[in-house]
């Protein structure tokens, strides 16, 4: 039963992406018959092959629409702002060449893979920091910091409110 649900969910996701990609191609609604039939067949093959991997480690919780809404808010709000700041920061350092780099460790206390991935990617794209390594067992983040002000930082020093957002969106 669980296996059927897994395959069905993967099929639905893959078919949705296919439909988005081939919109405006024909006369049945927005699509042509060829695209619909071919897309369904391909999505079914993909679902058979990859459904086990996709839902293995707690993927179900990410289908929650509330999480998607929070994620979008996060993306256009604090994340875009931090990214703009990051680019001005890099511009400043490219022009002046003033750097003081180092690799620091901190533990934001995230448990799930999705939360860690989200936080690591956010850290990489925001001011002065680049994720090097995440310890799977303890959840320690090793971050290359371009302007070290504190060799044993708290998570707030390095990435501000991002751990809180990651916890809300993905945990």
């Amino acid at each position, binding site marked *: 039963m669980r296996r059927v649900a897994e395959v069905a969910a993967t099929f639905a996701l893959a078919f949705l992406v296919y439909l988005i*990609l081939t919109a*405006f191609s024909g006369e049945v609604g927005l699509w042509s018959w060829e695209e619909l039939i071919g897309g369904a067949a391909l999505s079914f093959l993909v679902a058979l092959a990859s459904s086990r991997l996709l839902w293995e480690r707690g993927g179900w919780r990410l289908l929650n629409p509330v999480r998607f809404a929070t994620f979008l808010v996060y993306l256009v709000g604090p994340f875009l702002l931090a990214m703009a700041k*990051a680019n001005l920061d890099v511009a400043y*350092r490219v022009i002046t060449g003033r750097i003081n780099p180092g*690799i620091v*460790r901190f533990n934001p206390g995230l448990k799930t893979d999705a939360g860690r991935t989200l936080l690591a990617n956010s850290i990489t794209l925001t001011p002065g920091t680049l*994720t090097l390594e995440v310890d799977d067992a303890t959840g320690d983040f090793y971050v*290359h910091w371009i302007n070290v002000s504190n060799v044993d930082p708290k998570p707030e020093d390095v990435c501000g409110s991002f751990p809180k957002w990651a916890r809300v969106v993905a945990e």
Partner: protein
Amino acid sequence: MTILMYVFLGIGALFNGLGAVALHRFPDVYTRLHGATKCTTFGSIFSILAVVVYGAARGGPLGMSMVIRALLALVFLLLTNPTGSHALARAAHRAGIKPFRAVVDRLEEVGK
């Protein structure tokens, strides 16, 4: 609408250029990754947003399919770019490249 597109194109070209210059200005792999990843991701996002604006202003099936493809390309870049740079940074560290003039290196201390 056209003005908005020009602004996005300008921002995109500016920050992409910054990323290319950062590759030459910074002293080692990690700092170069900083510049290259952040600036080219931001610049490419704005270049692609310019195409989104152009397609939306144009309308019709062609314009809308332009918007859809550009948005998908944006999502892919936003997902894959930081992950790729993370993999490269970790690989560089494991290959034994020391960070330039580092004040502290906690990853070296753990011995991995």
